[in-house]
């Protein structure tokens, strides 16, 4: 499903070169629920961004659903991101000007699809996260947990192969965080979704099938 070979990432500022990741080799299989753990600043978010093709590794090769990424040019990766990957962010990143339903439809805007079809798929996704009644609300009218559920609906609406979640419960209290975690577990069990989740919460990590630990830019086995 997802294969990283010898991935390294260094950040170049004026005088200092920071090594964020070094020689990462890992693989995520179809249908797996994997968590990535590590202290802050260890490079786990950078790793997730590289998996999601949001960031380009300095060295190494990445393979998404048997597509080897050889170019990071806009036109080569936008389609791939759109169809294969769904993102869930710590701070939700919903567009405040758009209603819930329009936020969920967003990934479908960049596909060839009729407005009616988009609306149907978005309704379906919102139903799955239990927010069918909130389609006409604006994000600011919802609680944090509800907002994150909208974000999850947005991530799954295009039926991507891979869900990438960057501390999805990080901005939520434990009760709401638990709800979100349950939702991800359901998606994994019922829909056989492949999920990679970054977290620093040991409890959350325990609920996943496998935990990858990162320390100082390297995997710890």
């Amino acid at each position: 499903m997802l294969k990283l070979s010898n991935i390294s990432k260094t950040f170049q500022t004026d005088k200092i070169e920071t090594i964020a990741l070094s020689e990462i080799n890992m693989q995520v299989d179809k249908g797996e629920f994997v968590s990535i753990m590590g202290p802050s600043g260890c490079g786990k978010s950078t790793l997730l961004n590289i998996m999601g093709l949001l960031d380009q590794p300095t060295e190494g090769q990445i393979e998404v659903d048997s597509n080897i990424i050889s170019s990071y040019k806009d036109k080569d990766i936008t389609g791939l991101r759109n169809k294969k990957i769904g993102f869930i962010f710590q701070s939700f990143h919903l567009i405040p000007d758009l209603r819930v339903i329009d936020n969920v439809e967003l990934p479908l805007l960049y596909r060839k699809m009729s407005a009616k079809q988009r609306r149907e798929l978005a309704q379906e996704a919102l139903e799955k996260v239990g927010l069918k009644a909130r389609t006409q609300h604006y994000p600011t009218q919802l609680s944090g947990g509800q907002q994150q559920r909208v974000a999850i609906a947005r991530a799954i609406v295009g039926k991507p192969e891979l869900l990438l979640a960057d501390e999805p419960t990080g901005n939520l209290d434990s009760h709401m965080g638990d709800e979100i975690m349950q939702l991800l577990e359901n998606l994994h069990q019922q829909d056989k979704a492949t999920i990679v989740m970054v977290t620093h919460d040991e409890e959350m990590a325990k609920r996943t099938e496998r935990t990858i630990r990162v320390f100082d830019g390297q995997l710890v086995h």
Partner: protein
Amino acid sequence: MLYNYVLTAWKVFLRRKFFTFINLFGISLTLAVLMIATSMVEGYLYPKGPEKTSANYKVIDRLTLTNEKHTSTYGGRLGFKFIKENIWRLTSPELISLNSGASSVALYQNNQKMPKSFRRTDANYWKILDFKFIEGRAFDHGEVEQGQFVAVINQKLATELFGQSSAIGKSLDFNNQRFQIIGVTENVSEIERNATADIWTPYTTMPSTSYQQDYQGSWEVIVYHSDPSMLDEIQKEYINMLKNDLVLDHQDGMSVAYSGAFNKFENIAYQAFSDEYSYQSGTKTLATVLIVLVVVFMLLPSINMINLNVSRIMERSSEIGVRKAFGASASQLVAQFIVESILITLVGGLIGILISVFLLNLIEQSGLIAFAEFGMNLRVLFIGFVLILVFGFISGAYPALKMSRLNPVSALKGGE
């Protein structure tokens, strides 16, 4: 897709009311000023009154007389003798008309002084210019030849003097002369500077004949051809005559003449840019200056809007990051922001058009320019519309490019 762009744009405008207001304010004001200017230039270049035949004639109303060394120079309008000895020899025009230019005279009614504008002219004048007569007629060749004391007046003067009763046959006294009124025409806008007047009489009614001895004077000439493409031939023939075949027996030894037959646009150009020792009107310079002015004028609010838009990148970086993460390509984002920008300029443009219609009406009613009629026509609206689109595009394109190039990771973090 477009619907979604428009929807997002609308929401953004509503959320950022102050920003939207400033943008709309700048755009609508700029466009209103441009539209008013366009409409006025349009009113001058494409008159609706008697001068609506302007595509078929050129006007000669500038003359420079000088000697070889330019030590003694006259610059101004034409003298009758110059017209008689030179312009009347032109063979290419189908009609040549002269008139004294508009001068002011005082009429008295009930001991009230009424300043009026007055023009002496010939019979061709009425053939070239398309006057609408309310009643009566214009004077003809015979009346001009014989120096008959007949007059044509405009509707406003007729009403002032005679109310609702007919003016035909009534007499009109001014400058110690008495004229019989034979025609009443529509009022003519002051913008039509070769046609506008309150009173017209045959030029042969001048109190003295001394004007016939002058190379310098206040006269202007209209040269006409039914085929507009022949007008350049007339200009060529005239310049050729001035250069090679000039009759000029001037008492001060002036032997060189510069002049030209110009259409309306050439006339503005000549007044603005041409030097007095030239036959050319300087239209290229004028066109360049006009274009530069319009561009500069539009650039200022554009830069302002670009600046405002760019400063909003930070604010909307999260949206850009999300859209990129979910598969928006750079070109799709550029399209989105350009649509937003064009949309706001379109709204601003419509407001601008309304403002300009309102202001033009105000100018017309103020009497600042007598009998002026501006109004919007399709041509002015079309120019306005093109201006709006260009405006929207330039102010949207640069910020859009900058926005679309944001790296998604940093955009999601807040755009550092």
